[in-house]
């Protein structure tokens, strides 16, 4: 840890080579002398160190509760009904309980990334040594780990340094989780402050995980021209043995590919991935292929194409073994966090495990040694594939079989009730049974692959397989190109966009991130990304969202990554990588403060968050957010003052953080130049909001990209997009334009007449563009 230095001073010493006088030396785990930036006020902040900043935000964006469940059933006093003014047996209120569950979810998310990072770092240190230098982006990156610098006040240089960061993350998450115990924190705002703390820790751990794997595995280093890789079911050569890897933690996949390379098998076997492991595999080797986001698990397994399934951790269907068993596909579990009930074979010789898997003596094995996973997975796939070829048809039903099954439907409609997206499954099945597959094929496009419909079906019809049968043509033609995750954003790229942003040529930064629980299929997300890239926003993406955007073709058959550049610039679509690469998006926002204003990052969280909040027009969109990780990722953005929009399922995160545009008193900042309070309008209006439709989301993105520091040219451009999208998509002029115009120069010239009329009607008054801050100077000094 940066502060744990050992200083030794020796007046005189006799050694084998001579007498040494006045010898002084320091031993610390970090080479502190290479970083002369002064330490800020909050290195390794405690749970409460940034509480004032949190409350500043939370007083503007008060939690708006959407209880997903009216009861608390966490202790044996319960269940306690918390509706109305009722309190639980421990005294907790409904708001307290909702915020408490949000904290719990955020802790699960942050713990997951932290544990993932820990496993990765431990493994990489074992393999490469703790002195391995961190190198996330070569010469074009000066600020190698912005979040770590900001939060911990330390500048990590080696893999070993990252352990210190993880020590801190683990300690914080333990304390944060403790707060959710019965009879601990019950004040909603204090709980929310802790949610923000959890989010910050989450981004810290994500940064650790990604810079560790980028450095050690030599993944693309902040490379805008990272290779284009294959994505989609149709890109797999099914004549070869096929390995499927599902999850997030890439070492087992790396070992699979290394084993193939070492034994000259690359090209003989298809290595395919689902979810973030897929993304990270293609960052390691562009020959790997991605099948799709998490929702493709069932359809791909049931296709019978994979000859072996390797799972690591996170977002893996817990019934993967059951599904695989049906088609006699062996499964290897590789993580202590996800053992699937399998026997631990880590200590056994690979050949014995392979024999057992190939012969079918066992369904699968737990192997907690990535290197051994590499051997076993590859050899098993090679041996088993020729035998399985003949029945590779899998559950892809023949047309006749499918129709027969559809005819068994009793129209009880339980499937529709069970469907998270309320799709008209039973109607579609009825039509399908009458040889009209169109409706069911349409459902294929929107299906999130949860197979709750099957569990609900009284006739035990394999509904998902029927849907896939109807969409089989689509599925088989899914072959697209995705730009492999590039990692961090270069300092140089950030410098390059500074000018265009203040000159009003780039309206903002939008990040499409998160899972694949889309309300109406993935195309909506791709369409949003394309729309904002066309509008010259800097468009970033990661994880399942990045995959989804890639799984789209224009009329020329090109995917967005083949059309839009991968540089961090106007009109780009920038895939940073997997879930843990999200830290590069928040990291880029943080770097802006260092690069343009030369603000010190070191242990200086509140000042930098205030800078980002007031100046960086970034918006996060998690259209299909599903997981607890998504909750903690969002919370990390909130603490930096970056608003996040979620799709309709996002209401199940239990509360929004909404601003009140109508409360003028909420929207004053201090002008650092004059120390006067200045009204800046509701910018950004919300910190966390769920919207129903793609159209509402797009209008909201444009609106939430506004910031108090916008130059007039910048504001005019942002307003243009906001008004244009509102008119086109919602069919009307927005009613709040007057709140966003500070002076006449802010008015988009092509809309001048209309807007001037609105301003007159609203009794608008001109104001100034301040040097905005929510933290008065004296507080910064403390």
């Amino acid at each position, binding site marked *: 840890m940066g502060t744990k230095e050992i200083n030794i001073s*020796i007046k005189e010493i006799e050694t084998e080579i001579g*007498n040494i006088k006045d010898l002084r030396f320091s031993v610390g785990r970090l080479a502190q002398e290479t970083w002369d930036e002064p330490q800020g006020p909050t290195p390794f902040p405690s749970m409460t160190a940034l509480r004032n900043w949190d409350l500043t935000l939370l007083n503007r964006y008060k939690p708006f509760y959407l209880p997903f469940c009216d009861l608390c059933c966490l202790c044996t006093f319960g269940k306690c009904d918390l509706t109305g003014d009722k309190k639980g047996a421990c005294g907790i209120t409904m708001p307290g309980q909702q915020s408490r569950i949000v904290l719990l979810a955020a802790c699960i998310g942050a713990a997951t990334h932290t544990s993932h990072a820990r496993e990765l770092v431990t493994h990489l240190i074992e393999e490469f040594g703790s002195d391995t230098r961190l190198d996330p982006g070569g010469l074009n990156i000066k600020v190698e780990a912005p979040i770590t610098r900001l939060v911990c006040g330390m500048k990590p240089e080696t893999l070993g340094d990252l352990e210190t960061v993880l020590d801190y993350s683990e300690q914080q998450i333990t304390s944060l989780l403790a707060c959710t115990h019965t009879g601990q924190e019950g004040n909603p705002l204090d709980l929310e402050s802790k949610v923000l703390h959890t989010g910050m820790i989450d981004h810290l751990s994500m940064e650790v995980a990604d810079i560790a794997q980028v450095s050690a595995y030599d993944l693309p280093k902040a490379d805008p021209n990272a290779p284009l890789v294959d994505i989609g079911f149709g890109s797999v050569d099914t004549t070869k043995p096929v390995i499927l890897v599902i999850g997030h933690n890439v070492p087992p996949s790396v070992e699979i590919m290394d084993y193939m390379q070492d034994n000259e098998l690359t090209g003989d076997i298809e290595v395919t991935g689902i979810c973030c492991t897929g993304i990270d595999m293609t960052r390691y080797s562009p020959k790997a292929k991605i099948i799709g986001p998490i929702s493709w698990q069932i359809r791909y397994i049931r296709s019978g194409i994979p000859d072996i399934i390797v799972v690591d951790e996170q977002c893996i269907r817990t019934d993967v073994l059951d599904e695989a068993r049906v088609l006699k596909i062996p499964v290897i579990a590789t993580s202590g966090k996800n053992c699937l009930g399998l026997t631990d074979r880590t200590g056994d010789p690979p050949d014995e495990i392979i024999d057992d898997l190939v012969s079918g003596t066992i369904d699968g094995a737990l192997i907690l040694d990535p290197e051994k996973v590499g051997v076993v997975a590859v050899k098993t796939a090679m041996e088993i594939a020729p035998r399985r070829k003949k029945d590779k048809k899998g559950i892809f039903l023949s047309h006749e079989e499918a129709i027969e099954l559809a005819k068994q439907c009793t129209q009880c409609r339980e499937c529709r009730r069970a469907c998270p997206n309320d799709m008209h499954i039973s109607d579609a099945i009825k039509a399908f049974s009458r040889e009209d597959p169109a409706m069911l094929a349409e459902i294929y496009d929107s299906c999130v692959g949860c197979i709750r419909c099957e569990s609900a079906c009284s006739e035990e019809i394999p509904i998902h397989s029927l849907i896939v049968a109807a969409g089989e043509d689509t599925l088989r033609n899914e072959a697209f190109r995705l730009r492999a995750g590039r990692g961090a954003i270069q300092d140089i790229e950030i410098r390059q966009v500074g000018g265009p942003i*203040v000159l009003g040529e780039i309206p903002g930064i939008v990040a499409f991130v998160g899972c694949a629980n889309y309300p109406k299929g993935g195309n909506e997300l791709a369409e949003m990304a394309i729309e904002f890239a066309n509008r010259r926003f800097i468009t970033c993406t990661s994880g399942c969202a990045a995959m989804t955007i890639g799984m789209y073709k224009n009329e020329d058959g090109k995917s967005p990554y083949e059309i839009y550049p991968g540089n961090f610039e106007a009109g780009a679509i920038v895939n940073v990588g997997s879930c843990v690469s999200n830290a590069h998006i928040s990291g880029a926002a943080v770097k802006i403060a260092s690069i343009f204003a030369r603000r010190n990052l070191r242990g200086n969280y509140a000042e930098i968050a205030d800078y980002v909040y007031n100046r960086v027009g970034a918006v996060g969109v998690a259209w299909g957010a599903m997981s607890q990780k998504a909750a903690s990722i969002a919370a990390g953005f909130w603490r930096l003052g970056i608003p996040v929009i979620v799709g309709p399922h996002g209401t199940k995160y239990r509360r929004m953080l909404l601003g009140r545009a109508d409360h003028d008193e909420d929207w004053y900042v201090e002008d650092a130049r004059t120390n006067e309070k200045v009204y800046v309008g509701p910018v950004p209006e919300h910190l966390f909001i769920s919207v129903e439709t793609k159209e509402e989301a797009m209008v909201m993105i444009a609106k939430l990209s506004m910031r108090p520091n916008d130059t007039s040219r*910048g504001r005019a451009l942002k307003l243009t997009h906001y008004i244009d999208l509102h008119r086109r998509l919602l069919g009307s002029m927005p009613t709040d334009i007057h709140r966003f115009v500070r002076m006449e*120069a802010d008015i988009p010239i092509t809309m001048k007449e209309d807007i001037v009329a609105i301003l007159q009607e609203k009794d608008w008054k001109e104001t100034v563009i301040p040097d905005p801050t929510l933290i008065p100077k004296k507080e910064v000094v403390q």
Partner: protein
Amino acid sequence: MFEDIPVDVGLVHEGERIRKSDMQFELGGPKVAEKFELVRLKPAEEIESGAIHIIGPDIDELEEGKSHPFGIVIEIAGPELEENLEGVIERRIHEYSNYIEGFMHLNQRYDIWIRLSRKSFKKGLTSFRFIGMAMQELFRNELPIIQEIQITFITDPEEIKPLHAEAMAVYEARDARARGLSDEDVDVFYGCALCQSFAPTHVCVVTPQRYANCGAISWFDGRAAARIDPKGPIFPIEKGECVDPNTGEYTGVNESAKKRSMGEVDRIYLYSGFGYPHTSCGCFEAIAFYIPEVEGYGIVHRGFRDLAVNGLPFSTMADSTAGGRQIDGFHGISIEYMRSRKFLQADGGYEAVVWIPEEIKERLKDYIPESVFGAIATEKDATTIDELKAFLMQQNHPVVTQWTEVAEEPEETAVITAGELPITTGGFRILLKNARIYADKVIIQPIQPKKPGRGEKQ
């Protein structure tokens, strides 16, 4: 505002690209010799306000799928306007044309390239009259200093020839005037506070001979912007007394800097990287960095991907340069400033420059004095200080003459370099691995058997 125009007009169309297969026709572009756009200032009485003239075939008469000669002449009048601003106003043609749905405009001056989309043509965009109407509306609205405006479109292949020649002459005269304009010739400089939205203590001073660091704003741009929007982020600075013509210190600039930086900066040398250098935000195009070993400046630009000759990449030096601070020897600049005769004048100008990446050196070929051009190294000539020294000596670069005056300081050398250095003290054994020890003083004594001291027993 644009009700009479059959297509949409708005900022959202700015990024629109029209592919060849989607175009009705092309105006100008690489296949056509005569193409231009020109803004001229005229006395108000010579302008027929609001007029739109079309010389030659109109949109609906031009052959589909072909490239046609094309000229736009915009004549303007207004008491606040001056000839100096013509170029700045002319560049707005590009911006405004692109607001029109299905009308793509690239480049400027004699190089314009326009495509009209078939879709917009079908929607009724069949006459240049509509283009003219949209432009007039936009010019008047955004630039209220324009009081009278008339626009002429030329497509006639014969009529355009003399007009094209005239336009070329105007560009040349304009460029000569701009190049000839020096900081001494004007009373007013311009300050640009646009970057304050991200770097609150930085203000650029834009003079005829010192472009803004970002490379995007010239003195003429500043002048136009300050007139158009007097309350905007670009403002006039009365330059005041010249304190020192060599360093470029002006009382007015100092006062403005003090006020705008909240007292952080109170003196500015416009033409030096030392003493009180001009500050930078983060978006400077290049850095002039002083190399003490050779007493000269290296230049590194944002696009340079390798280490500069001093062993540092752009990103590291940029970190030392940015944030509105005055740092001796790290100076954020624009490429255009390197074309100025005042470029680092106080430090010796190009005679003090020893290393420039080849790409930039090539771009600046016409602006670097011939006498020193060959003596300035690029990454091809030197990638380390030692190589640079050798190159400069070999080329007899002007900085070399200064070297002899300074006596060489002995380099610090390690007294002990040991792979493993064991130290035994009070019951511990400390192993220093790969230790290098520097000492103020080294005493070497022959080891002699210890003589028993007084009071010590044998």
